[in-house]
């Protein structure tokens, strides 16, 4: 059995459809319209021990819901999951001692107390032996370079410093599985980079299994060998990050530098002109046409330099999200059967 195993996992919510305005609010006291939101619609996934997997997807795709299901915070509507052999939503203490969840948008440290006090509390909650606790805390504070901040009230820390403390709190009990939900959200580039560096190092040394959701493609590119793209509660892609580009991008970007200061006027026939600042030109060309286009260009013009590149990953992913939400838009019109119910 895989380390993490998910079969047909589903989660639906019933959401009160609130209409705008006071009158509608009054009506809503007696008669409410509900809509079923299918946050996760049948996910199958297997993750092996020591993998670092990224969940990519637009807002509301079901990434966070999946992590919450795997952490046992909520129970599924259907389907099953096993993490290290445990059913997460049974919430056994044995399971809860062996994983951690970090949410970039929620904090668990005592706001008015120094982080050191919250860490002590964690030591007792997780029953960590004092020697292990001191060693782990020492290592983590060194790695994240926050030794001097341990005795400062959490409310006086910067967002980046606080995130580091949250990570330490989550890692004190040396979890074997780590769920990270947007751990770098709202951080500046340097802080983001520091957290990435730390996570990469930590995962390499400890061989923990990590599932990460993030909106920052840089996080994903820096950390994960495997990417799972989720949209509208379903898995659209599962494989390497480079594979996303191969699979979903239909074009490549051709950069040409012509001799002299002139740009030929007949470039439109080869592909879409993205940028033209003489003597340089960027063309968007269909992948399958590349050899033909290159040959024709080189034959017809004097070209000093040429490069063929994949489009930026962000762009591919963004296109993918747009496509999938358009598809889902068609589908959800059917799903959007509004349930009427009085209350």
């Amino acid at each position, binding site marked *: 059995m895989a380390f993490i195993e998910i079969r047909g996992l589903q989660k639906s*919510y019933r959401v009160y459809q609130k209409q705008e305005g006071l009158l509608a609010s009054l009506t809503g006291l007696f008669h409410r319209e509900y809509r079923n939101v299918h946050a996760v619609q049948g996910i199958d996934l297997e993750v092996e021990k020591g993998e670092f997997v990224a969940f990519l997807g637009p807002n509301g795709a079901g990434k*966070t819901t999946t992590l*919450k299901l795997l*952490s*046992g*915070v*909520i*129970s599924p509507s259907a389907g099953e999951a096993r993490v290290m052999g445990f059913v997460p939503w049974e*919430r056994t*203490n*044995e399971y*809860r*001692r062996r994983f*951690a*969840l970090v*949410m*970039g*948008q*929620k904090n*668990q440290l*005592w706001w*008015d*107390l120094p982080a050191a*006090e*919250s860490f*002590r*509390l964690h030591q*007792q*909650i*997780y*029953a960590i032996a004092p020697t292990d606790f001191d060693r782990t805390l020492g290592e983590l504070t060194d790695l994240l370079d926050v030794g001097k901040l341990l005795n400062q*009230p959490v409310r006086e820390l910067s967002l980046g410093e606080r995130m580091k403390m949250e990570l330490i709190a989550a890692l004190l009990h040396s979890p074997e599985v780590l769920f990270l*939900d*947007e751990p770098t959200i709202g951080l500046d580039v340097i802080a983001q980079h520091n957290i990435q560096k730390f996570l990469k190092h930590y995962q390499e040394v400890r061989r923990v299994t990590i599932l990460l959701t993030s909106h920052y493609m840089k996080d994903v590119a820096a950390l994960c060998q495997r990417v799972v793209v989720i949209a509208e509660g379903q898995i659209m892609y599962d494989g390497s990050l480079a594979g996303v580009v191969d699979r979903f991008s239909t074009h490549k970007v051709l950069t040409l530098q012509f001799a002299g200061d002139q740009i030929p006027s007949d470039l439109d026939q080869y592909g879409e002109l993205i940028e033209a600042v003489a003597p340089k030109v960027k063309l968007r060309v269909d992948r399958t046409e590349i050899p033909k286009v290159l040959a024709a260009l080189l034959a017809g013009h004097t070209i000093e330099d040429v490069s063929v590149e994949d489009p930026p990953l962000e762009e591919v992913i963004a296109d993918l999200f747009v496509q999938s939400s358009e598809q889902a838009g068609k589908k959800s019109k059917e799903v959007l059967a509004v349930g009427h119910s009085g209350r």
Partner: protein
Amino acid sequence: MHNFLRYPRLFYTFARNSLIRDMTFRANFLIEILSNIGWMAMNLGFYILVFSYTKSIEGWDQYEFFVFIATTMFINSLVQGLFMPNAQELSELVRTGGLDYALLKPIDTQFMLSLRRINWSSLGNFFVAGILLAYALQHLDQTGFHPVQYFLYPFYILCGVLILYSVMFSLAATSIWLGRNQSLYDFWFYITNFSRYPMEIYGGNALGSSLRTIFTFVIPVLIVINVPARMMAMPMKPEYNYLATFAIVATVVSLVASRWIFKRALESYRSASS
């Protein structure tokens, strides 16, 4: 570390962290203590005034009634100090999704949510209650008291605290179903309003006795203070044994019910958006 030692230790750390936090805002801390004590002093003053007009309220004379007030203060300070801030926070945790982190911890979730914040300033009243009780007992004629009453008194205070805790926690747990339930303070006011008088006053007419029946047997808040207070203020009488026995049953049933309600409510926890 032994399992049964873990929870007392955790409680100690919760209490310690809360005290550190309260001390950080020391002016606020002192004002809270003083206003709590002031409120109880005004209550006491009111009854001293009442007793200047009458010798007894339905069989409770002045010093017996002081025992009753001291008992009220003991129980209220314990409930407000230990459980009130947690019950209030639970509603907030549900609304903001902060309950997620509590559910991740490998300890009993109800224990954690019930005791992680302690409001030390409310416990100030506990000491005032001690002084009041000592003063009342000095003036009270204790002939006919059975020695066991002095041991049963703290036991029944504990029962009273646990009953109020159960009612309060069950109510707070409903916020998991409702998404939000901030009626706790109001509720606390209504309940303590009923429970802080001797149950004898709910006699006589049909309204009084039906209130008495409901708040003794359905929501057992009347016995919370009445049973321990009588235990310390008057000699034991066989006709009150049934009430004392019922108080134990009510404590156990309330605790079990609160746990059941909490577990049921958790099943429908949705976790607010992140």
